[in-house]
């Protein structure tokens, strides 16, 4: 599939709007062979609205996602979903189960769902998630929703990819100091308090609100939306909040800033990945003994990098 003719054929199918071509293109990017495909298609991208959903495992990210897909479809827009689940550190295999909550959308031609395994990538996404989002954008999907792996406190890469970041939390998962900690709570444009039927839902809402009051925000102040994703309660309010944030990004010009952040992030990731591979190959070739700092110095010199 990496031969130029095969790539040309794939790009043609992609331009003709064949879902299978989009799926294949994503596979190529996941395998690290996506450069030619992205080069041929990136100028078609740039119009999709990108929404990130993150939060701890079991909080209801996939169910929220399914509700959002419903909202987006009601207004007639086409939507792509990328769900990331972790790969096994032992077998490198993965069980990707986020689709289960999205079953009602499987046969909707306006919805394209792709599960991705993290394949050892840290930060809450897979290495090729940004590529996949770009390809979905280029395919003509109006909204791309990216769901991270179940995030702990430090998986913040989604902030470099999405225009609007939703952090979903559930009641009863910690005290007020937890919500003051650095990390994923800082990247939220919208907080979702899911499982609103839980007796402690109001308390969590209060704790988030009081945290927001002592933070300093310029421009957008994160909104808090209470939902019960399973029944669909609050999803309309969430979609309205997303639209308010999108309008804010456009009016303030911050949308351009976010686009540039994403571009920089992607370029850095691609370049750093190449350097990492080269260094690994060199160090493995050396046998892996001795002073690690000196070995690093030699590896950098071999790449032509010197202070």
């Amino acid at each position: 599939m990496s031969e130029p003719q095969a790539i040309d054929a794939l790009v043609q199918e992609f331009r003709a709007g064949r879902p299978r071509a989009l799926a294949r293109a994503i596979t190529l990017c996941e395998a690290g062979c996506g450069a030619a495909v992205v080069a041929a298609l990136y100028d078609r991208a740039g119009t999709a609205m990108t929404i990130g959903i993150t939060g701890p495992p079991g909080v209801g990210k996939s169910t929220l996602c399914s509700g959002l897909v419903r909202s987006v479809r009601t207004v007639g827009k086409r939507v792509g979903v990328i769900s990331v689940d972790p790969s096994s550190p032992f077998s490198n295999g993965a069980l990707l189960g986020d689709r289960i909550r999205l079953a009602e959308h499987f046969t909707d031609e306006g919805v394209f769902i792709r599960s991705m395994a993290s394949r050892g990538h840290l930060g809450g996404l897979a290495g090729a998630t940004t590529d996949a989002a770009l390809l979905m954008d280029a395919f003509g999907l109006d909204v791309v929703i990216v769901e991270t792996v179940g995030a702990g406190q430090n998986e913040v890469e989604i902030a470099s990819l999405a225009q609007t970041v939703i952090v979903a939390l559930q009641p009863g998962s910690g005290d007020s100091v937890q919500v003051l900690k650095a990390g994923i709570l800082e990247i939220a444009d919208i907080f979702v308090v899911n499982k609103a039927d839980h007796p402690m839902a109001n308390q969590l809402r209060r704790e988030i609100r009081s945290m927001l009051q002592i933070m300093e925000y310029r421009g957008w102040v994160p909104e808090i939306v209470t939902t019960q994703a399973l029944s669909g309660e609050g999803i309309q309010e969430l979609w309205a909040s997303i639209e308010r944030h999108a309008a804010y990004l456009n009016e303030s010009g911050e949308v351009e800033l976010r686009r540039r952040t994403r571009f920089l992030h992607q370029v850095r990731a691609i370049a750093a990945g190449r350097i990492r591979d080269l260094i690994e190959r060199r160090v493995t070739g050396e046998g892996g003994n001795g002073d690690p700092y000196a070995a690093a110095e030699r590896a950098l010199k071999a790449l032509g990098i010197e202070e």
Partner: protein
Amino acid sequence: MRPLRIVVAKAGLDGHDRGAKVIARALRDAGMEVIYTGLFQTPEQIVQTAIQEDADGIGLSILSGAHMTLFPLVLEQLKAQGAQDVVFFGGGTIPPDDAVALKKMGVRAIFTPGAPLQEIVDFVKAECEKERPLLSS
């Protein structure tokens, strides 16, 4: 080299997914990426999933007795989508005569209770790699 991607599916009115989960785990432990669809899927949902996920194979588990209806419907969907290169195999409580008939229709293999997991893993690997070499994605 990329990992194989396999859709493990349950179709129709059949809520017994223990077998599907055991297979999913065995394939995962063999280094594959397994996409589990959940219960009560239609053949159309299963094939759409395989296409969007760019799956190398589909494993369908049926314990409801409806295998002679559901397997052919999935085959039909694969054909309609031009996706016969997706390796379609299955398992469950399927009598030997039916298994023969299903294989004649184009199901690549049928595994019945007691089939060793290693045999299933080896089959999936060999058959999928034959269809689509891993090195060239």
